[in-house]
Each structure stands twice: as structure tokens, then as C-alpha cells.
């Protein structure tokens, strides 16, 4: 039988580097700087709570919106930390990671042809979720000279009347770029002027190193137009628990909940219980991990520059995005060569779009010993390929 796949899905850009990922996964004894998640296991108190809940038989569905206790805790947490007021019952939804949150927002908001500004380079799912929801992603290419940050000017250039929303992710995967309050305020002005919605993915917020993180929703006049996405994956090293949250105007959250209840039903109860424990007692672990990342960031940036890879100091997350421009090789060739000759894995820039072929993404969510050894190997590779 000839099976036809939906046109929309067929049209989605295939992940060009699946083959490379498979190559990495099939190789033994690789030092990987290609990982998009913390190298720490979830804090033991979180794991212990999850185990206990399983022993007690907490294995059921929860409310579609997520357990009320967890939503209340999140409301309390964002209030205490960021002075953000969200009603736990109407303005907060527990999602299966921020990934689901992104998908829900797009499907809840977009009509065919609606445009969304998506900065580049950015996490690979952004443009596809816009397209799957029937919208059109308008790419905003950031620039290394500006530390990969959007500016009000280049946002404004793209603001035609069918642009409905701006996506923003800070600190950013893959560049580590983040924004100060002043920079965000300047962007907020353009947002207001062009009456945009803002979808703000702030899952790396706790991993901001040089200044305090400012949620977009806290900027004057922004809360009513921001869908604030966050989760437990990065800060609490809980990627596998798959728990995220969405805060926003009641109307949007209700619409998202509608889709969520038909497609997902609810996030896993084990994850939700673990998340409650994380909020209650996990901040110390978060701070310890942050301290460690911060040290590694200094080490990796300085070491890469020393061996001749041009790398700026990113403000957050656990990635650096050095340029390999002067080597004059495609990023995929660089990544494959490094993998084969030195068994070091990283993500070639081209994975984030053709425009980023002069870059590589290095994740420092890897032990200090690994980072040290990887730098030695990259240096060897650079001198052998010269």
C-alpha cells in the first residue's frame, strides 16, 4: 500500500544530522561535549521522593492542568523569586517539558499564515512547531559580533502586519546568549509598538552567570502578552522527568489546556511529585550545580581561545558556540573528523541551520576531567589538520 504522509510533515526540514548523531551513539569511549542536558543526575532528594511515591502507589493520572499542589507551588515560587503573579488555577499549566509547552502555545494561538519571529540560531524545534501549527516562522539571524542577541532594530525590520508573535529563548541553546533587563526593555518597546505576543522560553533561567535573570513577563506592560515557559529539566537536572510549566493570560492557558487534555491528558504523576520536592528543597542543589557550570564555563572559554578557537564568553546555559570560520571546513566535516580521529563529540553548527556552518556547539555539561581531556584532543586535532 502506498502510504501518504501529511504534506505539512513532509515539508518539515529533515534533521540533517541524524546520521551524525547515529555515528556518535554507535561509537564507544567517546568524550561527548554534544549533550543538551546536565551531566548531573537529579538531586537525590528528588529521586528519593519519586521512589517513595511509587512505593506508596502514586501511579495514576492527575488533573489535566497538573496537580494543584504543584501549580500552587509554582505560583508561589515565581511570586517570591520574580514578583510575578499568576493564579494557580487559571494561569498555570503543567506540561511535558517546555517542548510540549512550545507546541501547545503555537497550536493555541496560530491561524494559517500567521507569522512568528524566531531568532537563530536556536533550539531546533522552534520553527517546526510553528510550521506544524500552520504558522510561518520568520527567521531573525543574530550575529556573533552582537553575542548572538536580537536587537530591537532587527526585530522591528521583520514586523509586518501578519507577524503575531516573537519567540525568545534566554539563556539560549546553542549560544548561551542572554539579555540584561535593559536589553529586554528595549525589545519590549518594539513588542508593544507592533502589538506582538511573546513566547518566552526561559528554561535555563537559573543558569545565568553574570547578572540576574529577568523574566520577560516582569517587564512593564508585558505580562498580558507573554506566555512564560519554564521547567525543571535544566536547573534541577531533571530532564527525564519531563516536567515543564506554562504561565500566561488565562485565555491562552485555557486554550493550551484544551489541546493538552486531548493529546497528553496529563504530565506523569511521578515527575510532578518529584518537581514538588525540587521546588521545596532543591534550590541548594541548583546553586551547587550552577557554581560548577560557572567554573567550567571559564575554563572552556579560556582553553578554546588558547588553542585557537574563537569563542566569546556566554552569559548563561551550558553551551559555548565558538567559530571555526578560519579553519575553512564545513562544521559537519570538522565534527566528523574530530569524532573519528580523537573520539570527541560535539554538535556541528549546521545542525542549527545552514547559516551556522562556521560554528560548533560545545556543551560544558560534562565533568571537568572530561573537558580537560577534550581540550587536549581538540588541540591535537587542530594541529594535525593544519
Amino acid at each position, binding site marked *: 500500500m502506498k502510504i501518504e504522509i501529511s504534506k505539512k510533515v513532509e515539508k518539515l526540514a529533515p534533521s540533517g544530522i541524524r546520521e551524525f548523531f547515529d555515528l556518535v551513539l554507535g561509537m564507544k569511549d567517546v568524550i561527548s561535549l554534544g549533550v*543538551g542536558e546536565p551531566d548531573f543526575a537529579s538531586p537525590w532528594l528528588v529521586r528519593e521522593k519519586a521512589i517513595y511515591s511509587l512505593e506508596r502507589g502514586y501511579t495514576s493520572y492527575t488533573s489535566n492542568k497538573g496537580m494543584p499542589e504543584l501549580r500552587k507551588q509554582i505560583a508561589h515560587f515565581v511570586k517570591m523569586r520574580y514578583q510575578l503573579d499568576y493564579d494557580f488555577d487559571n494561569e498555570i499549566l503543567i506540561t511535558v517539558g517546555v517542548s510540549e509547552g512550545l507546541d501547545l502555545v503555537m497550536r493555541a494561538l496560530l491561524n494559517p499564515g500567521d507569522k512568528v519571529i524566531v531568532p537563530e540560531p536556536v533550539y*531546533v524545534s522552534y520553527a517546526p512547531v510553528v510550521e506544524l501549527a500552520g504558522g510561518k516562522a520568520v527567521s531573525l539571524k543574530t550575529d556573533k559580533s552582537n553575542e548572538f542577541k536580537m536587537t530591537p532594530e532587527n526585530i522591528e525590520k521583520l514586523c509586518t502586519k501578519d507577524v503575531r508573535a516573537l519567540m525568545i529563548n534566554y539563556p539560549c541553546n546553542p549560544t548561551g546568549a542572554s539579555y540584561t533587563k535593559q536589553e529586554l526593555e528595549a525589545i519590549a518597546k518594539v513588542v508593544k509598538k507592533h502589538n506582538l505576543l511573546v513566547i518566552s522560553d526561559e528554561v535555563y533561567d537559573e543558569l545565568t552567570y553574570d547578572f540576574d535573570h529577568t523574566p520577560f513577563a516582569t517587564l512593564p506592560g508585558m505580562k498580558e502578552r507573554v506566555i512564560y515557559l519554564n521547567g525543571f529539566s535544566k536547573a534541577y537536572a531533571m530532564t527525564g522527568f519531563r516536567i515543564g510549566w506554562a504561565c500566561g493570560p488565562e485565555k491562552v492557558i485555557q486554550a493550551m489546556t484544551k489541546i493538552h487534555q486531548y493529546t497528553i491528558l496529563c504530565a506523569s504523576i511521578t515527575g510532578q511529585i518529584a518537581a514538588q520536592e525540587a521546588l521545596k528543597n532543591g534550590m541548594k542543589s541548583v546553586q551547587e550545580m550552577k557554581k560548577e557550570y560557572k567554573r*567550567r564555563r571559564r575554563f572552556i572559554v579560556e582553553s578554546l581561545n588558547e588553542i585557537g578557537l574563537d569563542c566569546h564568553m556566554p552569559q548563561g546555559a551550558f553551551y559555548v558556540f565558538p567559530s571555526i570560520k578560519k579553519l575553512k571546513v564545513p562544521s559537519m566535516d570538522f565534527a566528523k573528523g574530530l569524532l573519528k580521529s580523537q573520539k570527541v563529540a560535539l554538535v556541528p553548527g549546521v545542525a542549527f541551520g545552514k547559516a551556522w556552518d562556521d560554528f560548533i556547539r560545545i556543551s560544558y555539561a560534562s565533568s571537568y576531567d572530561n573537558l580537560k581531556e577534550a581540550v587536549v584532543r581538540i588541540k591535537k586535532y587542530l594541529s594535525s589538520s593544519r
Partner: protein
Amino acid sequence: MDEILEILSNDARITAEELAKLTGKSLDSVKKTIEKYEKNGVIVKYKTLINHDLVRDANSFVRALIEVSVTPQKDVGFDSIAERIYSFPEVTSCYLVSGSYDLLVVVEGENIQTVSNFVASKLSSLDQIRSTTTHFLLKKYKEDGQILKKTEEGNRLKISY
């Protein structure tokens, strides 16, 4: 705690160059700081944490925790008796503690016999000692914040977005 001390307390073999990179301080200032700590006794010694269970002659290594109750002396309190106790090379650690006894003493020896002899002939016979309770260690799970068993590291994907 100073970041340099914090890092050193977990990895005594780290070089000053690495410390400079990790902390963002200059090499010179890192070296000076360490020198200062060594001089004023903040850094006492650089040691290696050994899992004795894996060493071939592990059978000839016994460790005991001994609870010691003592009568404190006028003027010097517990310090004088503590010094008499910790001066024995068999004693590897000695702490003054609150609670139902006074000193917690860790003693190492080749076998149960040597440790028992030490307690009986050297420790209990000291004048101010009222009583001792000896606990032989059966198994070490964790020491100085380090779990001794090599644990599985989970199976994080080697590459992901």
C-alpha cells in the same frame, strides 16, 4: 569558603594554572593565596582518599570508632586529655563531641587484636578515662563526601540538542 579552597578540598592535585582558569583569577594571585593558606595552616596537608577494601592487604586493616567518656580537668578542660590520646599514632582522628560521651576517637590497627590491645592497655588505663565503648567498622560506604562504590552513571545520550 574561598573558591580556591573549595576546589582544592575536592581535588588536591589540581594545578595553579587550572585553578586560575576555573576561578577567573590571575595565576599569580592563585599561587599567592595557596602559599598564604599553607603558611597560616588553613591548608594542613594534601592527602589521597583510598578505598582500603580494594587494597590487597585489606584484611590486615581494622578501624574502630571509640566513644570515650572522660573527667575534664580544671583549667584545661578536655584539651589535655585529648592531647594525650591523639598523640598515639594509632589514633587517626579525635573529636570532642556533645552528647552521652565526650571524645570520639578513631583508631586503626592491623587486626582486631591490636586495636583491642591498644584500647585496653593504652586508652582505658589513662587516669581520667571513665569508660570506653568500641565499635569496629564493618564496611565503609562513603567517606569525606565520596561514595566509595563505583556507581553506574546512568545512560545519558551521548549527543542531543
